[in-house]
Every structure is written in C-alpha cells, then in structure tokens.
C-alpha cells in the first residue's frame, strides 16, 4: 500500500487537483456560511414571532413553533431530498449548490431560532417589564434592550452551529454539489487510491474546521468574561 501512495502522491498533489480541492473547500465553507447567515436572520424572525402576544398573531406563533420543532427533527439528507425533488417537480432549474443552500438554510433557521430564543430568555424578566411599562413595543424592546444584552449569549453557540454544519454539508455531495466530499469522490473515481483521497479530504476538513472551532472557543471565553460586558 505504501509504495502505491508514494507513487501516486506527486500526481495527486498536482496543481490542478489542488486548485480543484481548494475550490471545493471554499464551496463547503460557503454553503454553511450562507445557510447560517440567512439562517440567523430568519431564525431571529422566527424567535421574534414566538414572542408576540397579540391574539391575531396566534397562528403565526403556532407556525413558528412548529417550524422549529419539525426542522430540528428531520435529518439533513431527508430535507435535502425533499428540497431537491420539490425543485425538480416545480421545474425550477436551480444549480445544485443553491438547492443545497436552501436545505441548509431551512435547517439552520430552525436551530438558530432556538439559539436566539435561548439568548432572549437569558435577558432578565425585569428588563422586559421595564421596557413594556415605558411603552416599548416588542420590536423596540428587542432592538434597544434585549439584543444589546443577548448577542453575547447568542453568538458563541450560533458560531458553533456554523462550524458544526460545515461537516454536515458533506451530505450535499449526494446531490452532486461540488464541495469537498464530492471532490473526493471525483478523485477516487479518477483512480487515485481511497486511502490517499479520503485521507486528504479528512485532513482538508480538519484544516478548515479546527481553526474555526478554536476561534469559536476563544470567542466564547472572551464574551463570557464578566468584565468588558459593555456594548
């Protein structure tokens, strides 16, 4: 086996393959980043909806709760298949990257909605009371009082979720998105040995994910320190 690896390696780590892998790694990060950025916006909206109290908004509240419950209990692969076939049947010709991005967004919104909600709930009840008594509406309360206090609670787990999802997007290879895992399959099909190919792919993921998760831990410690809690 070793002879084969040594023989293949120079060809495998050639210029074109490295560029191919680099682009694939970029797609992997972009997929998760895109889904999580849109996801935190939509997730905040969902979390906000769940905080409304007015009676006419009750159906929306209900839908928001159902949404977070459902999409956190369906595997990424199944959501991916549903989105894939839904686009196929609606004859919308969307590149596979975007099909996967929609799936990531759907799931990320649900998980991030819960993270945002937990952040909102971490702000003491008396802050909400004071705002309400001074005639702040829900949006003003969140904007001026709650978010400035909750963001440091929300950011670390949200970032952690983004890093976690970088690895989950490996499943997007199943519908043909050219990201890291798919690149591995392509190179394996070209005849490179599986040890070399998938070993390299694993290392590539590690090189992307490890620094980001370290950054996340650093972020968490920084934001959690009792001093410098100023906005």
């Amino acid at each position, binding site marked *: 086996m070793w002879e084969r690896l040594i023989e293949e390696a120079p060809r495998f780590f050639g210029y074109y393959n490295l560029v191919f892998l680099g682009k694939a790694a970029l797609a992997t990060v972009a997929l998760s980043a895109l889904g999580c950025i849109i996801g935190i916006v939509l997730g905040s909206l969902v979390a906000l909806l769940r905080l409304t109290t007015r009676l006419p908004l009750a159906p929306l509240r209900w839908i928001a709760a159902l949404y977070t419950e459902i999409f956190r209990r369906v595997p990424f692969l199944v959501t991916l298949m549903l989105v894939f076939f839904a686009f196929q049947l609606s004859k919308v010709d969307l590149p596979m990257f975007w099909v996967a991005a929609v799936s990531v967004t759907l799931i990320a919104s649900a998980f991030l909605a819960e993270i945002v909600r937990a952040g909102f709930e971490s702000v003491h009840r008396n*802050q909400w009371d*004071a705002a309400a008594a001074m*005639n*702040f509406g829900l949006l003003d309360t969140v904007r001026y009082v709650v978010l*400035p206090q909750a963001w440091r609670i929300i950011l670390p787990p949200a970032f952690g979720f983004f890093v976690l999802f970088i690895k989950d997007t490996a499943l997007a290879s199943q519908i043909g998105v050219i990201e890291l895992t798919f690149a591995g399959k392509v190179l394996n099909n070209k005849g490179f040995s599986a040890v070399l190919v998938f070993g390299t792919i694993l290392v590539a993921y590690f090189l992307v994910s490890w620094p980001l998760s370290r950054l996340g831990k650093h972020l968490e410690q920084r934001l959690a320190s009792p001093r410098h809690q100023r*906005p």
Partner: protein
Amino acid sequence: MPRLVINGLEARYGSLKVLDGIDLDVASGDVVGLIGPSGSGKSTILRTLVGLTPPAAGSVEIDGEHIDYAKPGDVRRLRDRLAIVFQQYNLFQNMTVLQNVMIAPTKIKKRAAAEVREEAVRLLAKVGLADKLDRYPDELSGGQQQRVAIARALALRPEILLLDEVTAALDPELVSEVLDTIRVLAREGMTMLIVSHEMGFIREVSKEVVFMDAGRVVERGTPAKIFDAPEEARTRDFVSKILRH
C-alpha cells in the same frame, strides 16, 4: 374629580386570586400609601395598573377614560400617563445612566434629543447623581440605581407615579437617600401611589393610607386613622406588629 379610579379590580395567577375586587381612587396631587402583609396583593395592583399583569375583571379609569387592557391602544395611552418604579430598579444593563433616562423619551416618545438630554441631566441632578451620567448601572450602589430609576420614570413626564417597594431591595443605610428623593416629589405635588413597608415614611407623606390583606382592601383613611385608631381588627393587628419593631 379623582384622576385614577379603580373599581372591582381582580387579578389571578393561575387559579389563585391575588386581587379580589379592589376599589381605589387617587386624586390629582395626592399621595396614596398602600400597606399590608407580604402577598396581600399590593404590588400586583401596580403591575396590573400598568398592564404587566392583565386584570381578570374590574375597571380602571383615568380622567374618565375607561381603559380596556385587551386593547393595545388603550394600554399604550395609559402607559403614557403612568410611570412605575420597580423594587429591583430594572435599569437597562446595556445603557449608561443618562441613556437609561433618555431612551424612552427620545426613541419611544420621539422628542428631540437635545431637549431630552437637558431635562435628563436636570432630573439626574435633582436625584443627586449629576456626576454619574456616564456610569453603567452595575457600577452604582442600589440606592443610586433606584434614584436613576426614579429619574427615568420622571423623564416620561407621568401624571401619576407608581412606586413598588422601591426601598425593599436596598441595604438599610441606603434607604433614606431614596426616601428623601420621594419626599421632594411629594412636596412638589406629584401624584403618587406608593407601596412600601416603611411605615414611618408612609405615614409622613401619604394623604391617604390603604391597608390590604389577601387581595382585598380592608380599611382606608388618613394616616392618623390607620396608624392610631384603626377600626378593623386585622388592621390593628398588622399595625401593632409592624410598629412594635
């Protein structure tokens, strides 16, 4: 004509009736003191009045205008006229002292920032905190925080000020600085509804004292009547216990 009229007010926490038919009126310029044992519903009256705990029954009128707590518009108009100061101060932790006082007038009432700032600085000077404008709440003592909270409430230019056990969370040596601030307001003719355990203070500033127990008004009258010659046995019992220590 009385400014605030409460009739048959009821409130519940689950199946527990915490307010059981409260009648109360507060005339313009009056200070009304609410006293009673813990859990008698005094604080709930204030929370219900500003719409933080929805009433189960009864009516609230301000200057003859009936307030329907199910209507957001009614509650909003009501909160334009009432301000509440909480036991735990409830200052916004993410804002400086000055920002705490300015936020509602500028962002909610949309008044000009320069004018509000001037007023805020004046109010903070009045409560003795002119040198703390740029401090954050967690850098202040409890008494200082509570005085900021009073300035913040006053900046709303309320017609009636509700004070909910504002000294109960304070260390004993900090109580008087807050009470002094309220005395000044009483002298200036601010209409106030005060819930407190500071009997000497209540007796001193109130025009009328209301004694509550188990969600009901037991007895009401002048401070002299309630503290020196109560008619009801329960009032007598409470007052004698409180005054004994």
